């Protein structure tokens, strides 16, 4: 191994440690008693300090099953919406010549530059007006809207790389435009779809802002918001908070593993060929 690669690996390992250590501390301390969390926060759980009280509190509090289901529903349906509409828009922008093509693309790209949270007040008024406050639909709609710009942007570039000849061969063979999109184009951009899925899924799962504002009711709470109930103004149940956070990591990790095989290919496509 040359000196260069050693240096590169050292930098990467250091970065990985920085990124993973907080997660490690959360998981580690969630398995300790309250006293041990404060006495030796950096120690691994041992025979004297091991305690599952956090987990039992979280599971006993009852609402957590609902919160998990809510988070899953919101994340998966938003993801489905973003991928479905995003890829269709991307196909249209990449494939068809029409008058406002460039302008439409630029308009969608504005959404990448302007954070959707700037529009929170307007969104809240809209949701109140359409009686969607305290529904999961409100969250799903907002997340689809906020995820679409980046999805369209990334997927359009990938859609452009699909050979015209292939699409034309489909047309000569009698495929409709929908079939060409669904049956020829989509399978070829699958790596890109996975990449977009991962990048949009994680912020949605972790979001606290919109659940707090649009759906704070007990039946519509997401898991990130649900974990906050253990953080009090005066007393915080750290065992429960850490246990709730540890549990909430699991589903995204599973989803990530499902997509990750294609993710690497999506990121490096074109770079190495």
């Amino acid at each position, binding site marked *: 191994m040359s000196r260069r690669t050693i240096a590169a690996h050292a930098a990467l390992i250091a970065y990985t440690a920085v990124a993973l250590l907080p997660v490690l501390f959360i998981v580690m301390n969630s398995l300790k008693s309250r006293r041990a969390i404060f006495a030796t926060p950096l120690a691994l759980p041992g025979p004297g300090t091991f305690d599952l009280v956090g987990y039992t509190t979280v599971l006993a509090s009852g609402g957590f099953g609902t919160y998990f289901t809510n988070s899953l529903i919101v994340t998966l349906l938003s993801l489905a919406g973003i991928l479905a509409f995003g890829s269709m828009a991307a196909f249209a922008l990449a494939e068809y010549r029409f008058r406002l093509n460039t302008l439409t693309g630029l308009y969608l790209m504005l959404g990448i530059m302007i954070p959707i949270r700037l529009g929170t007040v307007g969104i809240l008024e809209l949701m109140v007006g359409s009686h969607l406050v305290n529904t999961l639909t409100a969250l799903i709609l907002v997340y689809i809207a906020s995820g679409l710009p980046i999805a369209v942007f990334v997927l359009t570039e990938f859609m452009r790389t699909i050979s015209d000849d292939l699409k*034309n*061969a489909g*047309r000569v063979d009698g495929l409709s435009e929908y079939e060409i999109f669904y049956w020829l184009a989509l399978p070829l951009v699958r790596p890109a779809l996975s990449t977009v899925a991962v990048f949009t899924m994680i912020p949605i799962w972790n979001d606290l802002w919109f659940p707090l504002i649009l759906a704070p009711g007990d039946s519509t709470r997401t898991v990130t918001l649900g974990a906050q109930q253990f953080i009090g103004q005066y007393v915080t149940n750290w065992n429960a908070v850490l246990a709730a956070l540890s549990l909430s990591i699991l589903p995204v990790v599973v989803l990530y593993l499902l997509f990750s095989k294609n993710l690497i290919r999506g990121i490096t496509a074109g770079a190495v060929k």
Partner: protein
Amino acid sequence: MTRNEAASVPPIALELIGITKQFGRTDVLTGIDLAVDEGDFVVFVGPSGCGKSTLLRIIAGLEDQTAGNLRIAGASADGVPPAKRGIGMVFQSYALYPHLDVAGNMSLALKREGIPRDEIARRLNAAAEMLELAPLLKRKPSALSGGQRQRVAIGRAIVRQPKLFLFDEPLSNLDAALRVNTRIEIANLHRVLGTTMIYVTHDQTEAMTLADKIVVLYEGKIQQAGRPIDLYDTPANVFVAGFIGSPKMNFVGGDEARRAGAAMLGVRPEHLSITTGDARWTGVVRHAERLGSDTFLYVQTQTAGELTVRVVGKTELGVGDSVGLVPLPGMLHRFDDRGVRLP
């Protein structure tokens, strides 16, 4: 019409009437008129950007003409979707469906048309037999070589039994040896099937060797259409004269041409001979290409610029030697100041 008459005047397979295409404000094709007889092998040839591929895509229905009409086998094809035009098309990049095996690729269109399963199997086997694809039917395109992929692409067009075959530069992705083989295969295919074929290429050798009729396109216009040998013998203008034939025709302008009553004189390298006697042009050999069967000499002349000469077989002449050149009698082409051939 009796059978004899039908045989003597073949029906028209494809008719283009005033086809015009604009992209935005750019004219890509202007007023293309062409009739193709049934069973003909027609090659569209021209440099890149001349509009030949666009014209093929208009015939296929993948692109709409801005103006003009299109008739395939006597019926108007304007606005008819590609799948309903009775065409089979072979693309430059093969364009096989990556997730279907060879059999799936070839039978997709037939399934779409609702053709019964045993009929599909019959046509599939016949085409596989003809193209030697039978052992490959269960393979995915990624497991095939370039030549095999090209044969599958051709097979996909054959099984549809089209009225019109369209080829869009089918050989340009193949290496040189395979290109010659596939060229011969395509010529054979045309003999066996007898179907009308339209073939697009930028390679004049392909055009000369394959075509019953060549259509030379340049700047969106048909420069000349006719039998290969007619284009070679009597090119309609300077562009066709320079484009057909390899090496390129020599052109001589200036006083020399004016004395012959033309703006430009043209003479092919094979129609110049080296003489020790009365020479029309004299010069010095600047470069020699020795192919064994032929030698090409590039001669820098005093009065006519650089001229290319083809010498059959080998020659002792080399760089730096002085030579005298005479055109073979009757082999000088004359063009007027617009580049049009003079009689």
